[in-house]
C-alpha cells in the first residue's frame, strides 16, 4: 500500500484533549452541529477548515477520554492526517483502529507555521513541508500496526480473520 496525504496545516499546541474533538454537549446532535464544535478551542478552525486540510500538533494530542468519536469526527470532517510531537495513547490506538493516519514526529511544531503545505508519506513515516522544502522523519509504526491501517482498520482485519478461520 502507499498512503500519501497532502494538505494545508492547522496548528495546535500541547494537550489538545478528545473532549475538544467530540464534545459532550453535541453528543447525539446532528452532524451539522457537531461539525461546528470540533476543535472549538482554535479560533478560526470551524470557519476556515477545508476538507483535506491536515493537523500539526504539539505534545499529547488526543489526551483524556477514550471516546473514539474524537478521531472518527476528524476523519469524517476529512482531516487528512494528524502529525504530532506525541499523542494521548488511546487516541493513537483509536486512530489506528479506524485507519486514520497519524504520525509521531519530534520537532514537527517548529517545522510548520499554520497554512503551510504538508505532505505525509505514511508508509515511510516521512513528513515534508512543501512550502519550505524541508523534510522530517517521524517514528515509524511497527509492521503489526501498519498492517491494521493497510487493512482499512481493525474491523476489516477482523472480517478477514473471521473469514479465514471459517474456511
Amino acid at each position, binding site marked *: 500500500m502507499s498512503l500519501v496525504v497532502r494538505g494545508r496545516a492547522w496548528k495546535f499546541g*500541547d*494537550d489538545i*484533549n478528545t*473532549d*475538544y474533538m467530540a*464534545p*459532550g*454537549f453535541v*453528543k*447525539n446532535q446532528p452532524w451539522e452541529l457537531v461539525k461546528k464544535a470540533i476543535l*472549538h*478551542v482554535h479560533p478560526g478552525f470551524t470557519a476556515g477548515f477545508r476538507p483535506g486540510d491536515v493537523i500539526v500538533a504539539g*505534545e*499529547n494530542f488526543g*489526551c*483524556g*477520554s*477514550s*471516546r*473514539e468519536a474524537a478521531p472518527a469526527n476528524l476523519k469524517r470532517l476529512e482531516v487528512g492526517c494528524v502529525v504530532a510531537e*506525541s499523542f*494521548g*495513547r*488511546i487516541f493513537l*490506538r*483509536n486512530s489506528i*483502529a*479506524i485507519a486514520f493516519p497519524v504520525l509521531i514526529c519530534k520537532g514537527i511544531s517548529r517545522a510548520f507555521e499554520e497554512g503551510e503545505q504538508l505532505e505525509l508519506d505514511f508508509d515511510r513515516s516521512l513528513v515534508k513541508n512543501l512550502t519550505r522544502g524541508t523534510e522530517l522523519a517521524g517514528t515509524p509504526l*511497527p509492521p*503489526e*500496526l501498519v498492517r491494521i491501517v493497510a487493512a482499512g*482498520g*481493525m*474491523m*476489516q*482485519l*477482523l*472480517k478477514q*480473520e*473471521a473469514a479465514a478461520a471459517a474456511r
Partner: protein
Amino acid sequence: MAAKAGMTMAERILARAAGRARVKPGEFVTAKVDLVMANDAQFPQSCKALEDIGLKKVFDPDRIVVVIDHWVPANTPMVAEMHRGIRAQVKELGIRHFYDAGVGIEHKVIPEKGHALPGQLIVGSDSHSTTYGALGAASTGIGLTELAYVMYTGKLWFQVPPTIRFNLTGRLARGVSPKDLMLALLARHTTQVAQYKSVEFGGPAAAAMDMEGRLTLANISSEMGAKFSMFAADATTLAYLHARTEAPVHAFGPEDDAEYEAVHGIDCSTVEPQVAAPHKPDNVKNVSEFASVRVDQAFIGSCTNAHAGDLQRAAAIMKGRKVAAGTRFLVIPASHEVMVEAMKNGSLAVLVEAGAMVGTPGCGPCAGGSTGVLGPGETGIASTNRNFKGRGGSTESFLYLASPETVAASAIEGRIADPRKYLPGGMQ
C-alpha cells in the same frame, strides 16, 4: 544494565498474557485479556460494529462486564432506547455480569463486585479503566472498535510500556487526601509524565493506603497519561477481595530487581490541599491561592472521588453547617453500595441537611452526560478528574478540581475554601 533484570508488574502481566517467559519495554505483543469492561458510552456501537461484519458472538461472555452508568437514569428518549438495546444485547450474547442503571459507576462497580483481580490484564471502554490497577491488575482504556475486536477475539495488541515508580513516604495530614496527593504529583510532573508508560505506586505510604485511596490514585493517573497504574496486591487487597469474590486471589507485585525508567519520591506529609484551575488537571496550586474564587456549584462525585470514605470526610466538614446561599451543592455517590453505606453511617443525612442535592449513582455531569452541568459564565469546583473547557457543561464555564473535603468547604463558603479550618477540633 543487568543482563537479567527483574520484571515490573506491567511486564510480568503482559509476558504471561502473551505466553512469553519475559518481555521488555518497547516490544509489541498480542495478549489475551482476562476481563473486558464495556459501558453505555461505547458497548452499543461496538455490538453494531460486529454485526456490520456479520459477527454476533463474544469470545467468553463471562469475561465481559457491562455497566450502564454514563447517562443514568436515561435523560432523553434516545438514551432510553439505547439502554433498552443494551439490555437486549447482553441477554442475546449471554453476558451475565450486567449492571443496569443505578448500580453505580463502572470503576466502582468492577472492584466492588470482585471482577478485577491481581495479576489480570484488563481493558475497558473508558480512559479511567486504569482504576483496577488499585487491585494489582494491568488495566487500560480502549475505544469502541478495539472493544468490538477484543469482545470477539479475546486478544489485543499491546506495546510493553516502560514503568515509572512513585515512592510514597510520610503521612497525609488531616484534611488532605489522595486526590491532593495526585494533584501535587500532576503539578510537579505534568499531564505527560506517564505518557505511553505504566505507573507503580510503592513505598510505605502506598502500603499503608486503604483501597479507596488506591482506587482514587490509580483512577486519576489517567490524567498523567498512564497506560496502567498499579499498586502491589497485598493484605489490604486480599482483605478487600475476599469479601467480594470466591475466586482465588494471590498477592502480586513487581520482581525484586525490577527495572524502572524513573523513580520519583514524594513525602506525603508535605502535601497541602491542592486545586487544579481551568482548563487542565495539572494547572495546580495550593488551595490558598484561590481563596477569592466564588463558586456557583460544588460537586462531589465521579469515579475518582465518590467513595463512602469521601462522603464521610465531606460530611465531617459539613456537619452542623449549611451550603452558602447562591451556591448549589451536588452529591452523587459512586455506587448503590456507597449510597447505602452513606445512609447507614449518617454521612448522607448530614450532607442532605446541609443542603445537598443527591443524584443517582453514576457518572453525573462529570463528562457532561447527566444533569448538573455548568452554564455560560458559571464556575464550579468538583471532586472529578478533568476540567477541560466545555467537558461538564458550557465552553464558557470554569471548573476547578479538588478533594471532596475542599469541595465541601467551598460549598459552605460559596468560594474556594481550605477544608482544614472546618475539621472537627480545628486545624490541629
